[in-house]
């Protein structure tokens, strides 16, 4: 066997070995970064469409079609989404499009809290005329906390401040 062939085979074999390691690591990669994003709203929308009646224009599309130019909402630094950062719903996000968001255990809330410490209509989050987002406690049993203080009146929400309802924590983010 010629020297050249052997050298090529030797280097080729090392390359193949490394290739195997790289392929194996690629397989691991999917384990590390694998997350799944589910559109909960649209799924519920579909379910309702199947039930017939009440075929309002799907709000997700409306949100995308409206350029964020009108009103005070497009101010720089205005929050665009609401994120659940702790609790059973961790990871859930809701896009803020000027609508009122209700929180509670009641099934028709925007965010249905599966939390023993939450009341059925616990709190609501809504924009005032200036586009400033306000949180208001709806007379809940265990209270709504902004940072560490229990809410007594409707209060503006600073960006990133934690709103605590039972074991659930919600934040507004850009």
């Amino acid at each position, binding site marked *: 066997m010629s020297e050249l062939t052997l050298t090529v085979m030797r280097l080729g074999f090392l390359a193949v070995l490394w290739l*195997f390691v790289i392929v*194996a690591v690629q397989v691991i990669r*999917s384990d590390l970064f694998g997350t*799944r994003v589910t559109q909960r709203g649209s799924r519920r929308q579909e379910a309702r469409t199947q039930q017939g009646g009440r075929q309002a224009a799907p709000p997700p599309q409306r949100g995308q079609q409206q350029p964020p130019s009108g009103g005070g909402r497009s101010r720089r630094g205005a929050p665009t989404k609401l994120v659940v950062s702790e609790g059973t719903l961790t990871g*859930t*996000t809701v896009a803020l*499009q000027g609508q009122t968001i209700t929180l509670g255990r009641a099934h028709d809330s*925007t965010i249905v809290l599966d939390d023993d410490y939450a009341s059925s209509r616990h709190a609501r989050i809504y924009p005032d005329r200036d586009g400033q987002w306000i949180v208001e406690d709806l007379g809940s049993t265990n209270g709504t906390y902004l940072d560490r203080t229990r809410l007594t009146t409707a209060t503006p929400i600073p960006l990133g401040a934690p709103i605590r309802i039972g074991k659930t924590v919600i934040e507004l983010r850009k």
Partner: protein
Amino acid sequence: MSVVTNTTTIGAIEAPSRRNTELALLAFAVAIPVFAYLNVGLALDGEVPSGMLGYGLGLALLATVAHLVVRKWAPYADPLLLPLATLLNGMGLVLIWRLDQSPRLIDLAKRSYGAFSPSAPNQMMYSAIGIAMFVGVLLLLKDHRVLQRYTYISMVVALFLLLLPLVPGLGTDVFGAKIWIRIGGFSIQPGEFAKLVLAVFFSGYLMVKRDALALASRRFMGLYLPRGRDLGPILTIWAVSLLILVFENDLGTSLLFFGMFVIMLYVATERTSWIVMGLLMAVAGAVAVGSTASHVQSRVAAWLDPFECLKTAPESSNMAYACDQMTQVLMSFGSGGILGTGLGQGNSDLIQFAANSDFIFATVGEELGLTGVMVFLLLYGLIIERGIRTSLAARDPFGKLLAMGLSGAFALQVFVVAGGVMGLIPLTGMTMPFLAYGGSSVIANWALIGILIRISDTARRPAPSPAPNPDAEMTQVVRP
């Protein structure tokens, strides 16, 4: 007005079964050893070796059987464990076959035993038994939590296995280390199997006792010191492993068991103090025994300076023998360089005794060079990583500890052998998992992979979908 808008949930991906990924990787893992056979044959004789087809088909058959069993009985198992183990086993077969072709080793065998018998066919048979063991584990062990019931029985079995080589007439003394037993022509290394059984005992025991070991402690100089009476278990294991060291003359086995216990203790209690104490106790024990036992002394001398020791040691003594081996191994690694001499073109057979078992990593070092050694260490590292990943994903504490203990034992074994061969720690007679020649090691490690695959199947299996709520159709939410 509709209430729900863009609501999204970000959750962990529902792990697909990944069996096809496994199959593709497995085909790759069988193709590499076949390529290696071709490489060795071309380098040694200049022609395609006659046994290539046989070994290739044999390995492919074993891999296919293992894959089909996993596909049927552990469909959500980790896709990497089986291909990695298959590749290491296949490469081990190639390296053993390559050393079988060496005229020097054939000569040595003829001089020592009167006849030479090739090791590769035996290793092929052991691999087949190993795969059978793997299949057996997956078929019989439907749920790893069953093992929890046998916590204290496992302790007794493990002690029995560990003490077996000391039984007169049964145990055999192979160059100082008494870790073998001989039953009707077969040599068995019970320690390899004791590793698995002991992991079961440790996980069952620590799962129950970990709160006592973790919480009852005083803080002293930033370390949590456990109460005196909680020191019982670690002291017992320490004493047992020292007894193994003294009576069986085997540093590797005793380090493996003590290290495995300390790793699992740390994982179970999250107390760094156990690691500190474990290291101190291991060092103290090793120094105490090392300064008295002559067998260990020669190994230490060969580790500190093999070339000097070769000059000073008395002719044909045990120490000269150990030092000679060590010098050959170091020269072997050195002559490999970065890229190696190429398969079949090295002189690692100069190591002579145990070239294809304890010292097989020197052949990797010489013929595949640093590049190849790194690949092999990475392959072992990936198996260990998958094991620890399985431990993280497992939902029950017993499974977590068991997966952690098994991968920890595997890691320690690789460290003890590779470190010993490369001169990082004193050499001990253990086998490189899957790579080295030896039936017990191959069979026990296939069983280990089987248990890991069983745990990872349970851990990665998607949760069953919730039962349909009978109220859902009866009630409707009416929105204004």
